[in-house]
């Protein structure tokens, strides 16, 4: 036990004296969560638009006011001629232009029909799509207000309700994903690097020619990273609660336990990687290519698994991150308990046991 303690102490010295790894350990989660939370979002805020108003009557003015009152848009400028629209877009000052036809109000009263054209800058198709949806929604709402007093039979108004993320806040979707990536990265990559470092520097040779048992070396190596990963998980959850006001619906205790389970499975993968790589660089490449890419692409974090081709869907099943994302989305967003996610937990547990067994078996007690 004393040996083991001495070993862990040494590991902590390594971690705290290596500024770069320390930066990766603690800077990365914060940077990633902020990046994903703020920069890479699917929602729009304060988008600049321009208006070309051919009629300039009470109705169009009211619509324009409604649009600029919303937090999604701000009317940056008024355009006078159709010909100017192109130049406004080219300057990149606005993302969309609203073009009201002539006699808008009159047409609406007389024919019950008036046209407004929404022109969006589709160089970024996703944003353009979102903008046009939002503008449509505002127009629909206004139209409904107008029709309030008139009863028209059989009017079908489609109504969509979003559950769990009613505001469609993308940060809610990203937090579980980012947490998975960070835990995977810190746990698997850092352990595999720290074990291969001993191989590269030749200290592994001395550790082997010592009474330390393989299991002591392995646990001694991973223990500090379990500890650090838990801190990371806590930091991520705190950031998402306090900065992004993301509610955690389920039990924090369960979330913690599931996170530890996932951390251990990632650590076991890290050990496995270290047994097949001789240098730190190889270990890093294998961790990045072999773990990070599948986690990002196949775990359902960014691309929905259901829309993948069947072979990829099958592959996604062997990725622990997929199950972990299902679990933490369940706990964080839906607030479910273990009775709803026991199947995923069991799969993750099975994988973890398998990886640990394999890595202990593959750990070499000699040099070859």
């Amino acid at each position: 036990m004393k040996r083991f303690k001495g070993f862990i102490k040494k590991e902590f010295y390594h971690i705290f004296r290596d500024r770069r790894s320390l930066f990766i350990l603690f800077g990365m989660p914060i940077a990633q969560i902020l990046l994903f939370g703020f920069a890479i979002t699917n929602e729009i805020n304060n988008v600049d638009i321009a208006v070309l108003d051919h009629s300039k009557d009470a109705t169009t003015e009211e619509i324009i006011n409604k649009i600029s009152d919303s937090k999604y848009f701000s009317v940056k400028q008024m355009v006078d001629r159709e010909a100017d629209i192109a130049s406004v877009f080219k300057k990149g000052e606005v993302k969309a232009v609203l073009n009201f036809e002539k006699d808008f109000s009159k047409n609406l009263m007389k024919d019950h029909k008036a046209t407004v054209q929404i022109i969006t800058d589709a160089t970024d198709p996703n944003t353009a799509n979102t903008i046009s949806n939002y503008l449509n929604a505002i127009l629909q709402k206004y139209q409904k207000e107008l029709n309030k007093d008139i009863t028209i039979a059989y009017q079908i108004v489609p109504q969509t309700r979003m559950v769990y993320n009613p505001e469609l806040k993308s940060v809610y979707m990203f937090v579980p994903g980012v947490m998975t990536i960070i835990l995977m990265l810190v746990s698997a990559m850092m352990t595999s690097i720290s074990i291969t470092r001993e191989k590269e520097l030749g200290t592994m040779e001395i550790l082997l020619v010592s009474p330390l048992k393989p299991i002591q070396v392995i646990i001694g190596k991973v223990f500090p990273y379990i500890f650090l990963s838990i801190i990371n998980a806590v930091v991520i959850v705190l950031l998402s609660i306090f900065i992004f006001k993301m509610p955690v619906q389920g039990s924090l205790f369960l979330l913690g336990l599931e996170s530890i389970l996932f951390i251990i499975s990632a650590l076991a993968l890290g050990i496995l990687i270290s047994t097949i790589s001789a240098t730190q660089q190889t270990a890093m490449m294998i961790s990045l290519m072999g773990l990070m890419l599948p986690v990002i692409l196949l775990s359902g974090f960014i691309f929905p698994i259901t829309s993948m081709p069947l072979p990829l869907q099958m592959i996604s099943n062997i990725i622990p991150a997929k199950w972990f994302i299902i679990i933490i989305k369940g706990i964080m967003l839906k607030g479910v308990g273990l009775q709803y996610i026991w199947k995923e937990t069991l799969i993750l547990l099975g994988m973890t046991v398998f990886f640990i067994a394999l890595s202990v078996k593959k750990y070499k007690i000699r040099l070859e």
Partner: protein
Amino acid sequence: MSISISNISKSYKKAKALQDISFDVKPGELFGLIGPDGAGKTTLFRVLTTLLIANEGNATVAGFDVVDDYKSIRKNVGYMPGKFSLYQDLTVEENLKFFATIFGTTIEENYDLIKEIYVQIEPFKDRRAGKLSGGMKQKLALCCALIHKPKVLFLDEPTTGVDPVSRKEFWDMLKRLQQKHITILVSTPYMDEAALCDRIALIQDGKILEIDSPEAIVKNYTKQIYNVRANNMYLLINSLKEYEYNHSVYPFGEFVHYTNSRTDFNPENLKVFLESKSLIDIEIKKTVATIEDTFMELAK
């Protein structure tokens, strides 16, 4: 026997690193493994320290079999690999403490064993190991290998890359350790260090050329060696090699070690020959053989 090796052979994919090696090291002996780079010294060390398994043959260290009893060996030997293998980001004291702890002991418990070495590096005990000079590193590595009072000590090229003064100090320390009944197997590519061992094994291309005490090995060299010197070293070597009766020609410091194939050799004849090659300031003197000469002769 402290170390007993019988018929050990080891090959990597195609290269034969060790071929049928057998020798014994007595308890308390300072045994040297002398040979050039790539001779198989490190491979033999790794077989004996249970890091590699030999393809053929068997060996025991401190009475334990290197394959079956590898755990017992790992408790009882100290190993200092050829490459500096301590934690560079840990301080001198932290390194020593770490190795004491993993062997289940403390610095205090075996301090008298390392005292003489440790006092020399103690002033730098808060310095990171990576920032030490070559000689200091080796002293620290030796302390770390000794801290658990091993029965057998394996030192793989401990003085490679170390300055001459530190090298001498290092060997003095080995001599003192020997008096504390620690068996030491040390390898080195330096022939001058061989003379400091009790017995040496000359090894090349994975084969043992000879095993004996350094004195006996030198004595076994029967040919008379001449120190030859002239104004132009390069021309001298080439000329000597052209001389029809030459047996061996090796540069040796400022001289060339020369042996003749005839028993009735007259240095004057050689001098005349060399003068005909337009060399001047020629000097030919008898000298005694060194281990290096023996090695070169055996390796021929």
